C-alpha cells in the first residue's frame, strides 16, 4: 500500500466518478463541471506516470480551453433542462451490451498484464526530453500539427459564420 497506489486510487476514483456523473447530470453545465474534474484527476494520473509536461498541457488544453469552448457552444444553443423522451430503451440496451462486452473482453486481456518495469528516467528533465524529441525526431509531425490547428481555426470560423449577408452586416 504505497503512497503512489493511494494517490492512484483516489485520482482514478475521481476520474471515474466524473465520467459517470457527466452522463447522469440533467443540466449540461453540471456535466461540463464533472468533466473538468475528470480532466484534472487525469492530470494527476499523468504526474504519477512521470509525465509532468503532459499533465500541465492536460490542465491547460483540456481543463482550460476545451472546457471553455464547450461552454461557449452550450451558451450559443438552447437546451431543455429536462430530458423528456425516454423512448429508445432498446438502443440503450443494445449499446450497453456492446460496451460491456467490449470492456469485458479487453479486461480479460489487461487485468494481469505486466511487462516488467524497466526504469527509464522520464521524470528527470521531462520537458527537455519532450522538447528534444519534438524538435528533432518528430519535427515534421509537429509542424503538420500546426497546419492542422490552423485549418481547424479557419474551418471553425467558416462553419460557424452566418451565411446571410444581412446578418453579416450586423456583425
Amino acid at each position, binding site marked *: 500500500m504505497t503512497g503512489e497506489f493511494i494517490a492512484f486510487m483516489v485520482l482514478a476514483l475521481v476520474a471515474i466518478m466524473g465520467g459517470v456523473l457527466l452522463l447522469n447530470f440533467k443540466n449540461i453545465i453540471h456535466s461540463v463541471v464533472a468533466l473538468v474534474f475528470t480532466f484534472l484527476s487525469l492530470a494527476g494520473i499523468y504526474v504519477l506516470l512521470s509525465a509532468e509536461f503532459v499533465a500541465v498541457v492536460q490542465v491547460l488544453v483540456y481543463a482550460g480551453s476545451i472546457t471553455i469552448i464547450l461552454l461557449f457552444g452550450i451558451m450559443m444553443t438552447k437546451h431543455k433542462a429536462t430530458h423528456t423522451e425516454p423512448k429508445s430503451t432498446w*438502443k440503450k440496451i*443494445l*449499446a450497453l*451490451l*456492446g*460496451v460491456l*462486452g*467490449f470492456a*469485458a*473482453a*479487453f479486461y*480479460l*486481456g489487461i487485468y494481469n498484464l505486466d511487462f516488467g518495469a524497466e526504469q527509464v528516467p522520464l521524470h528527470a528533465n521531462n520537458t527537455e526530453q519532450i522538447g528534444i524529441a519534438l524538435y528533432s525526431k518528430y519535427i515534421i509531425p509537429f509542424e503538420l500539427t500546426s497546419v492542422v490547428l490552423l485549418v481547424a481555426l479557419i474551418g471553425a470560423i467558416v462553419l460557424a459564420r452566418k451565411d446571410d449577408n444581412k446578418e453579416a452586416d450586423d456583425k
Partner: protein
Amino acid sequence: METAWIIPLFPLASFVLLLVFGKKLKESSAYVGIAMTLLSFVFAVVALVDRLQSPTYKAEAVWLTIGDVQLTAGFEINPLNALMLVVVSLVSFLVHTYSKGYMHGDDRFHIFYAYLGLFTFAMLGLVMSPNLLQTYIFWELVGLGSFLLIGFWFYKEEAKAAAKKAFIMTRIGDVGLLIGMILLFWQVGSLEYDEIFRAVEEGTLSSGMITLTALLIFIGAVGKSGQFPLHSWLPDAMEGPTPVSALIHAATMVAAGVYLVAALFPLFTASETALLTVAVIGAFTAIFAASIGLVQKDIKRVLAYSTVSQLGYMMLALGSAGYVAGVFHLTTHAFFKALLFLAAGSVIHAVATQNIEKMGGLWKKLPLTGPLFLIGTMAISGVPLLSGFFSKDEILLATWASGHTVLFWLAVIAAFFTAFYMFRLFFMVFAGESRSEVKEVKESPAVMTVPMVILGLLAIFAGYMNTPWFGTFLGDWLVEGNAALGPAHVEGPAWIMYVVTAISLAGILLAWLIYGKRSISRDWLTAKVPALYNILYNKYYVDEFYQYTVVKATFFVSRVVRFVEVYIVGGAVFLISGIVKVFSTLGSWMQNGQTQMYGAVAAVGLALLVVIYALTGGYIQW
C-alpha cells in the same frame, strides 16, 4: 392398310379447323365435321376390306428410348380394330349428320362440332393403338371429350354436375388401369400388346400377377363402360345433347371399356379369377340396371339404363370366354342403341320434353321416327331375325357353355326385363292418346331421319354377319389365326334359343297388356309393394349411398388435409415468413437515419468480434 393411320386424323383436322375457323363458318361447320368423318369412314371401310384379305398389319416407330426400354408409337389393324374403326367412324358420321338438324340454332354450334371431332379422333386413335401406353393416352382423351360434351350446356347446373361426375367416376377406374399398366410394364418390361401376350403365354408372369393386372385393368373398363359400382355417371350423362348420348352409348366412350377387355382378352383368359369377376360383374350389372330401367320416367334415362344393362351383357360374354359374342354384341348394340337414341332425340325434338308421361300417341304424328324406334326396340329386346336376337343368343350360349348356370339365368331374367321396359317405353311414347303439351308435333327434317333410316337398316341386318343358320363369318374372321381368343362359335343346346325368344316375347306381351291394351292396371304391382317401386325408382339409392359414404368420407379427409394445410404447413410458412419479417423489421428499424444508431451497431459488431477473439484466441475452433 398402310394408310390407315390417316383415319383418326380427319376428325382431328375437323377439330382444329373448327376451333380456328368455327366462328366464321357458323352452322356450315357441320359440313366440315360431316365431310371429315365421312372420309374417316371411307378409309375405315377400305382398311376393313383390306384386312379381310390380308393378315394383320402393324406399323410402329420408336418414340422414346429410356435405357434399354423402348416406347413405341404406331397403329395396328387386326380384325377387332378394323371392325371397331368401321363402327366408330360410321356411327360418328351419322351422329355428325344428325346433329346438324338437332343442334340447329345453338349458339355454340361450331364448338359442338369441334368437340365431336375431338371425341371421334380420340376413340379412333384408341381402337388403333398397338400398345397400352398409346391406348391410355387416347383413353384419357376420350374421357376429356365426354366431359366437354356432357357439360356442353354448362349453364344447366345438372349438366355441369353430370360432366364432373362422369369425369371423376371414370377417373377412379383410370387409376386402376394405370396401376395395372405400371405393374405390367414392371413385370413384362414392355407395354406392347404382343409382348404382354407372349409373356402370358410363356409363363413369364406369375398367375397371381396376371389376375392382379387383369383385375386392375378391368377396373378401368368398369369405370369407362359404366359397370356396377361405377355405373351411376352414365345415366346422369343424359344431361348432354342427345346426339352426344348416342355417340357415347353406341360408339365411343362406353365401348372403350369393352374394347379394352376384348383387346387384352388373352390376358383375361389366363386367369380364372379375372374371367369370373368380369362375368359376375357383367351379369349383375345387366340385371341391376335392367331392373332400374323398369320404372324410370325419363326417356333418355331408360335408354341409359338399358345401355348399362347391355354393357353388362357384353362383359358377361367376355367373362364367359365368349370373345366373339362380346364383340358381336358390341357391334350390333352400337347400331340399335345409336338408332334408339337418335329416335329418342327426334321425339324430344318434336315434343320438347323427356318425360314419357307427357308423350303418347306419337305413332301417327311421327311416321318415320315411330317405326324406326320400333325397330330399335325390337332389336334390343331380342325379337327374332333382328340383329340383337343373334348377338344376345350368342352371349347366352357362351354363358351356358362356360357353366355359370346362375349367371345364365340372371341374364335370361335381364332379357325379360329388357324386353318389358323397352316396350313399356315404346307404348308410353307412341301408343294411346297424346298427353303432350305441344299441340303441333312435326316430324324431324331429313338430315335427322336419314341417319336413323341407315341405322335402322343396320339394326335389322347387322346380325346376319354372324348367325348359327347362315354362317358365322364375323366369328371366324375375328378369331382366325389366334387360338387365344377362343372358338368362333359356341354350340349349345337348341332350347336356349327358344327359351330366350319366349322370354322376350313374354316381356313384350306383358308390356303390351299393361301399357298398350291396358287390361292390367299400371300400378298393379306398385300399389302392392310401393317399397320395391321406390327402391327401383331411386336406382337402389346408389347415388345416395355414395353421397353418404364416399363423398362424406372424402369431405372428411379433405377437412383433415385442409387442417394440416392451413395450420401445419401454413403455420410453418407463417413462421418462416415471420422470422424473415422480424429480421427485416429489425433491419429497417436500424436504418433510421440516426448516426448514433449506426455507431451503436458498429460498436456492437466490433464488441462481438473482440469477444469472439477473446474467447477463441483468434480463430474459431469447433
